[in-house]
């Protein structure tokens, strides 16, 4: 028998170290370097966590759609697994973005929720849509069909994300704190630097967690396969129904 297989995939350690370093640097910049915003004061510090979370989540959703295209074209289940992990992780990040956004709204406008902010509103719509991804998967028993239908969903929803933002923005006046104009045109250089480092930190975190989740899922799939090979079909028992790819 060979050495015990590594649960964690290659490169995960390095990625985790880099993530920790950048996130720590970002936190230091946020609290000790970036100046206080002239309009919002200290509350604006939420910006450095909320916006990167939201941007990463949205990019992750679109990434899930692109990976799903690869799955539909090639038909190999490993792309479905990647698409699943990307969307799964994005959903967690999106929930974080919604909660931090809500806290920010309460702090700066006095309400936990503001409909007048198109970015927040469209973000909620996107989260509501992606919240159906897991129930959809869970509701289809045949794993191959589950993977294919989930990919169709991921492609459609991925294309829906930008369109939804455009429509909601058109429907409402832009009443957003001006720090949020992501072109960065209004941000002083020090703020922009802090924001950029935060964004990189959160994106790295997303990549690390995706990799972690991916390798954990792969180990479990391998484990099942090994048990079936070594001990026969009966030893594994009936597969528990699952929303995750197998």
């Amino acid at each position, binding site marked *: 028998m060979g050495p015990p297989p590594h*649960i964690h995939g290659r490169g995960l350690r390095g990625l985790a170290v880099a993530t920790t370093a950048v996130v720590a640097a970002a936190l230091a910049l946020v609290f000790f370097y970036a100046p206080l*915003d002239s309009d919002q004061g200290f509350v604006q510090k939420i910006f450095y*966590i909320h916006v990167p979370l939201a941007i990463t989540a949205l990019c992750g959703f679109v990434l899930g759609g692109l990976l799903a295209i690869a799955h539909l074209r090639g038909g190999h289940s490993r792309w479905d697994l990647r698409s699943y992990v990307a969307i799964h992780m994005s959903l967690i990040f999106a929930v974080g973005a919604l*909660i*931090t956004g809500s*806290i920010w709204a309460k*702090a700066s406008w006095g309400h936990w929720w503001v409909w007048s902010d198109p970015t927040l509103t469209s973000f909620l719509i996107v989260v509501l849509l992606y919240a159906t991804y897991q129930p959809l998967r869970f509701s289809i028993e045949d794993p191959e069909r589950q993977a294919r239908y989930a990919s169709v969903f991921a492609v459609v929803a991925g294309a829906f994300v930008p369109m939804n933002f455009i429509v909601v923005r058109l429907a409402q006046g832009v009443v957003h704190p001006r720090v949020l104009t992501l072109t960065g045109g209004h941000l002083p250089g020090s703020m922009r630097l802090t924001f950029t480092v935060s964004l990189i930190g959160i994106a790295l975190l997303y990549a690390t967690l995706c990799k972690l989740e991916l390798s954990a899922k792969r180990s479990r799939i391998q*484990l099942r396969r090994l048990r079936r090979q070594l001990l026969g079909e009966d030893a594994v028992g009936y597969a528990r129904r699952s929303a995750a790819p197998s």
Partner: protein
Amino acid sequence: MSLLLAAAPALPLHKAGPYVAAAYIVFVVLLLVYLAIMGLRTSRTERQLAELRRQVAEREAGAEGQPREEVAA
């Protein structure tokens, strides 16, 4: 510092502090909960792997003594 604060018409620091803290705590708690769940799942996978290794070793030990039995279909 005090000049900057004075220029800010928004919440003063002592009121804004809890909100900012809450936002960052939400982030950390989400992360920790996720990592805890992953840790549990990984340890379960490792336990199953150890179990599998034990079963395989047992089978190999048993197979050495007598001819292999076919599992009844």
